[in-house]
């Protein structure tokens, strides 16, 4: 795989990557997005009808297009584990409270998982390939694999790929009860949400992140996960990594990351990205955005002063893991 990431548009709890303060760390038990001023990106009439998932998705995609100097992409691929929760919950609430009576279509229409990718296509007039992946903690990774497959068949085209998940009161509560997100008893991890979109192509351009390999796997214990990461490192002959980015997040999987930092990545500068964006299924898209941003604006904001070429990212969401190998070219 050689997927060149030409630009990034990020909306996150740490702000947007078109501001000087990005990433700004928030101290909170729940990390909601700091939303940008949408007025230059989305017409107000349309904005009013958009749920958070749709508006952060649309705005992040516009930011990435703008940065790449592209009006519309040739193809679109979006990853979202949870889809449009706000509209889903709205319709579910009305349906159950009103005993299936007197329902209106708007929330249902906007509840489908492909709403964001469809809306981007609609607003940009993009008639090309359009997919939405909904595979839990691998949803965003699969858009990258999709992009690689697509560009193999349509070389030279520009594809918009992105990850988006929104947090709602209902989903936060359900995930707290399930033991994932931090609750009143301080069990669990800091919940997050966000949208990060990218323009990806198969042609090398200076000053881009080239994604060389992605491995997605599930593992139910640290040893199994470590084995996968080691095999990934071998497969890519990773010896002299300049920086590793990890999804360490203060849960029972910290041991897995600690093990990596003392073995495979000992003495390698590290960025732990979930302190900025919180935990969510498509948080890997935030991490990729952070790397694209750091390449343009410097790694020094993470206390790294050496020049960076080879980067490995290791992430997990529950028992869904991914390893990424990237070169900054």
């Amino acid at each position, binding site marked *: 795989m050689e997927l060149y990431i030409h630009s990034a548009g990020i909306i996150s709890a740490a702000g947007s990557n078109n501001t000087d303060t990005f990433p700004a760390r928030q101290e909170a038990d729940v990390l909601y997005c700091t939303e940008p001023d949408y007025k230059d990106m989305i017409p107000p009439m349309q904005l009013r009808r958009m749920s958070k998932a749709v508006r952060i998705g649309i705005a992040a995609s516009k930011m990435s297009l703008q940065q790449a100097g592209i009006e519309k992409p040739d193809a679109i691929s979006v990853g979202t584990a949870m889809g449009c929760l706000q509209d889903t919950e709205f319709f579910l609430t009305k*349906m159950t409270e009103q005993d299936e009576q007197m329902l209106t279509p708007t929330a249902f229409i906007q509840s489908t998982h492909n709403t964001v990718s469809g809306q981007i296509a609609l607003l940009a007039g993009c008639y090309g*390939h359009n997919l939405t992946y909904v595979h839990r903690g691998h949803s965003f990774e699969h858009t990258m694999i999709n992009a690689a497959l697509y560009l193999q068949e349509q070389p030279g085209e520009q594809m918009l790929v992105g990850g988006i998940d929104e947090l709602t009161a209902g989903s936060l509560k359900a995930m707290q*009860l*399930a033991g994932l997100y931090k609750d009143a008893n301080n069990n669990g991890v800091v919940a997050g949400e966000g949208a990060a979109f990218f323009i990806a192509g198969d042609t090398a351009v200076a000053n881009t992140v080239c994604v060389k390999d992605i491995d997605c*796997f599930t593992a139910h214990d640290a040893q199994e996960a470590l084995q996968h990461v080691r095999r990934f490192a071998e497969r890519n002959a990773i010896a002299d990594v300049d920086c590793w980015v990890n999804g360490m997040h203060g849960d029972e999987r910290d041991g897995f990351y600690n093990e990596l930092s003392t073995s495979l990545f000992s003495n390698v500068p590290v960025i732990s990205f979930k302190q900025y964006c919180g935990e969510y299924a498509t948080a890997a898209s935030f991490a990729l955005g952070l790397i694209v941003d750091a390449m343009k604006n410097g790694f020094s904001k993470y206390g790294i002063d050496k020049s960076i070429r080879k980067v490995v990212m290791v992430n997990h969401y529950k028992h869904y893991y991914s390893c990424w190998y990237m070169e900054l070219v």
Partner: protein
Amino acid sequence: MAQPAYIVNTGLITAIGNDTESCKASLLAERSGVGKAEHLQTYWKDEFPVAEVKASNEELAMKAGVATNWPRTALLSAVAVAEAWLPYAHKLQGMRTGFFSANTVGGMDLTEQVYKQFKQAPETVPMDNLRHHECGAVTQLVAQYFGFNGFVTTISTACSSSANSIMMAAQMIGNGMLDVAIAGGADSLSKFTLNGFNTLMILDKQPCQPFDNNRRGLNLGEGAGYLLLMSERAMKACGAKPIGIVSGYANANDAYHQTASSPDGRGNKLAMGNALKKAGLQAADISYINLHGTGTANNDSSEGKAVAAIFEDKVPFASSTKAYTGHTLGAAGGVEAVFSALSLQHGIVYPTLRWETQMEDVAFKPATTLQVGADIQHVLSNSFGFGGNCSSLVFSKA
């Protein structure tokens, strides 16, 4: 495509049968599965007929050998995957196998049962009702049960979802990333979808009449359909014979409206045209089109015009099987891929049930007479959905 993805086996469950063979028997008998809901509990059960799978969750769980507390979509998926996969599972040791599934509302059938209670007292809701809410969770239940631990994904592009999972699987076999793929999708009926489609006023109160001038809307259905796809190497290794190949595919977007198709079917035309191009075929090479044909005024008109634009005055046999199975949403592309495979295998053209009156704005007449043993070389299958998603697949004799 570097190497073809061979269709080796199929798995199917719909309102007209619990496996491929029984669905085929119903198709040949022109037997529709549309009727009054027995398992779906809804206020609207007397108002809107549906094409429900004729089995309770307990019966489905027993058939698949899984737990009864799975979402119904996962149960349907497991039944169909078992049919496609199990006869070959033991012959495919060491092969790189991927599982590509699709659905639209995940475990919604369980979520909606407790949602009112969840809003009032979330702590009292059994976590089992919410645990599998995500679309991906449904796929993962099935993947774990069958031991698929390689590439596993879930696609959700509304009514075109499982056509896209077949497309991605064919690509990954095509470029040598995988040897074997189980690809398709599943969706069960839910109150959420029934009420949602009702707000759009596109549900038919009678059994639907696709491509009829007096059509009134669609009947929702449920089911699961999967293809077992293999590279030539994998197929030879297990001594299998191909039913056909996935010769072409294309995905396009109509970019017209979130829930409606453009009047001239721009996305539909792009999907069909590009799929033909991918297959290296001319329109005249297609022997049968399995239309999306939902029975709504909008779809059939847009799709009909797009078909006419591509095939001009030489439209081949074309029919919609939704009058048999209802619209199975995220499963439709998978279900109809199996129907397309059966068409290739046995030369079947499915008659469009209940067709009476020629559409005014579409010149061609859908197939209304059953044919068996016809010369079917290439089948085009359409799946179009909300969000402007349009996908077409081409299946050819190997």
